[in-house]
């Protein structure tokens, strides 16, 4: 007699990976539930809040207006934020390029690749804390913002760059070493040209991130630009419609960046 369990075809073997996937999902769901049960709601009605948020969105996006500044002023504030993002990305990229060359496993000696550990710690500190820490030494403003934002950019880009360097063919480096090329020659003639497309797309991705970070630093750390205006409109003037117009501006620029990034990626892939 054949039992039911024997007739069922086993389609997937149970292994460690499946176990870990299930455990991860279970833990995530449990932590989420624990969160919802232990949050300090302070007597707020979540459902009412959601309804109110819906109304906020409608007023914000359907009736935007200018009251504390003009269209031209807002554009110039937008350019300040873009400028902060550009400076941070350039400074971060230049420093990261050197650090990544020293940190990449296939280019570095054993001792210098310890940089990775330090970089991981730098990356773990949130950007806003870097900016606020530098603000004590340099004062609030663009200097503290650019230097503080660069720290996190460096943490991010060193990891991305050094991983792109490690992806390159070991044979090329070995061949150049065998022909007696120096370290600098290997870097400039083989490593950089072959990983240039990766470097460019990572840098542009970071520029996109830095734009949003620059908005946030304007709001949270007084770095100026469009983020600061949004903070004032929201927290001080309590002007929903003005928040709406600023959101439109940021949204437009962010989507423009995204479209450009997709184009750039496609073009780089064609050239590669």
């Amino acid at each position, binding site marked *: 007699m054949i039992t039911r369990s024997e007739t069922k075809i086993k389609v997937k073997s149970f292994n460690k990976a499946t176990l870990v996937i299930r455990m991860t999902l279970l833990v995530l769901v449990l932590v989420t539930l624990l969160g919802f049960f232990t949050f300090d709601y302070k007597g707020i009605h979540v459902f009412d809040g959601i309804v109110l948020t819906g109304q906020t969105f409608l007023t914000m996006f359907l009736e935007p207006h200018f009251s504390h500044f003009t269209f031209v002023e807002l554009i110039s504030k937008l350019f300040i934020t*873009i*400028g902060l993002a550009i*400076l941070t990305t350039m400074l971060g990229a230049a420093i990261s390029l050197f650090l990544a060359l020293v940190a990449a496993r296939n280019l570095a000696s054993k001792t210098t690749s310890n940089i990775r550990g330090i970089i991981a710690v730098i990356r773990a500190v949130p950007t806003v804390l870097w900016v606020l820490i530098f603000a004590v030494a*340099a004062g609030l403003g663009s*200097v503290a913002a650019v230097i503080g934002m660069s720290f996190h950019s460096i943490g991010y880009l060193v990891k991305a760059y050094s991983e792109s360097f490690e992806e390159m063919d070991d044979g090329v480096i070995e061949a150049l070493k065998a022909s007696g090329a120096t370290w600098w020659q290997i870097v400039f003639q083989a490593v950089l040209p072959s990983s240039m497309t990766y470097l460019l797309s990572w840098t542009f991705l970071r520029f996109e991130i830095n734009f949003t970070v620059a908005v946030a630093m304007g709001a*949270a750390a007084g770095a100026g630009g469009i983020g600061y205006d*949004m903070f004032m409109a*929201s927290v001080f003037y309590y002007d929903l419609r003005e928040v709406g117009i600023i959101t439109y501006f*940021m949204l437009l620029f962010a989507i423009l960046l995204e479209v450009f990034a997709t184009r750039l990626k496609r073009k780089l892939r064609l050239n590669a």
Partner: protein
Amino acid sequence: MLGNFFLRKRMNFLAYFGLLIIIAFVAGVITEYDPVKGFTSIPKAIVWGFTNFYPNVESFEKLPDILQKIRETLLVSVAATVTGGAFAFLFAIFGAHTTRFNVFLGVISRGIAIVFRNIDFSAWAMILLFSFGQNVMTGYFALFFGSFGFLTRAFMETIDEVSGGPVEALKATGAGYFSIVFKSVVPSTMPQMISWVLFAIETNIRQATLVGILTGTGIGFAFDLYYKSLNYHAASLVVVVIVIAILLIEWLSNYVRRVIL
């Protein structure tokens, strides 16, 4: 000919380099960035850090309070990412080219994802302040909307990348829509999706600090409070706690990623 090639290459390089310099200069003028002050502020900040910015004995009295705050922040980040991920999964199924069943619905869900992704966490926080006030739910919803937008895009790309072939094969055998999604798409994309969710949790903990400063909740509020009352020892303890928490989460998720991918 060959010399010409190298000359042209060098000219190209110089042109791009010059363009970058000009862009940097213009950006510097617009933002009133002072490079000299920028470079001199680094040693100044290091000196200041070593003399003022370290946890001392007194600041450890604040530790139970800080741990309570980081616990709340961690829970908010995970809860926002998981619920955001659940919604993102639904929208990704509707929007991905391989699994969408209605072109109109697909375009709509892609559009919603683009809007949500491109409004930053900080902007969400300031918008939500209007309806939730200084409450843990402001932070929760800010992180929820942000990770929802990000994860929808990530999930869509994963689905399109991984399950094009199997879906076509199942369609050819006459399998129904739900069996295609639950027997093929979900199992084959699950490891990638979990990896994305873990990544989103890592970023959300960092973002939670920022959102906390703006909305007055969680660990960000603790830092802001000590920082603004010039209690730098306690503020530095907050930084240390955040770094440890983030490194721990990164280590855990790297372990999970190594096993499942």
